[in-house]
């Protein structure tokens, strides 16, 4: 741990006082939130929104009828490699579809409709990009 890290650790440990909080109200609030979210989830699953999300997920997957146009029999090896990559991509996109679906349901339950924009902001965060460029330069 260098000087800066030590300074940060010391100040984090002493800087903010350990504020007392009401554990009973946290527990009661947690149970109440769980019940509310369960009710919303139930309502959401019985609405057409989920069907639309499922359709979007399915449409995001590539069609299986796309085949490589191999110009000659001598490209069997290349064909095998192509098929293998296709299979891998399909697995990846399939799992991405599932993640997309799960996240969408979570976001809808939270009434957090702007999260996708936020994610886009995170991707375009200039300071993150700067950090990466600085790191690459140093490397």
């Amino acid at each position, binding site marked *: 741990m260098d000087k*800066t*890290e030590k*300074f*940060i*650790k*010391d*100040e*984090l*440990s*002493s*800087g*903010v*006082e*350990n*504020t007392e*909080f*009401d*554990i009973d109200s*946290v*527990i009661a*609030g*947690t*149970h109440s*939130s*769980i019940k509310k*979210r369960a009710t919303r989830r139930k309502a959401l699953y019985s609405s057409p929104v989920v069907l639309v999300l499922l359709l979007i997920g399915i449409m995001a997957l590539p069609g299986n009828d796309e085949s490589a146009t191999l110009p000659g029999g001598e490209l069997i090896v290349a064909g095998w490699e192509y098929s293998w990559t296709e299979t891998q991509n399909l697995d990846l996109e399939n799992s991405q579809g599932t993640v997309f679906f799960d996240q969408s349901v979570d976001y809808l339950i939270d009434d957090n409709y702007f999260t996708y924009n*936020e994610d886009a*902001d*995170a991707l375009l*965060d200039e*300071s*993150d990009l*700067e*950090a*990466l460029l*600085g*790191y690459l330069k140093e490397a």
Partner: protein
Amino acid sequence: MTKNPDIVLFEKVQSRDSKAFDQLMREYSPELYNFILRIVSNAEDAQDILQDTFVRVWEKSHQFKGNSSIKTWIFRIAINLSYTHLKKRKRWSLSILDEIKSLISDSDPVQDTERVHNSMLLEKSLTFLTPRQHAVVVSRIYQDLPFAQIGEALGCSENAAKVHFHEGKKRIESYINKQVS
């Protein structure tokens, strides 16, 4: 061989035992709350995030695969929620001045002025970090969490978490050096 009591407790939570869940909350709340408070620097927000963390723990408990300790898994959820909160707060443009004002009003004038000064220095320097850098720096230095776990919580790779950490540290260093010199 006896099972780890934390695992026994968590298995009860997984089987939807609400008393075990209450016990889990009581056990983890103090440390978790202080950790979240270090990231978001606001007692009310920290309590809300703590509550949200436990809601997610209850809902996602079946997804716990035992790849890390239960504590690390819960802290990962807390980092993720705190990071999302910081991103939103950045969007709402909470000014640095407001942060400092609240620090001044919360501080006791009799307290050691150097400690207050250092604390404010760090608090202000943290506001120059991106939400992701902020979350990584606090998680790594205060909670001593591994980069791989932090990266997973923030949706980036272990190496990206390291980059955010070093860049964040560099920004803090440069801010403090400017203020001290």
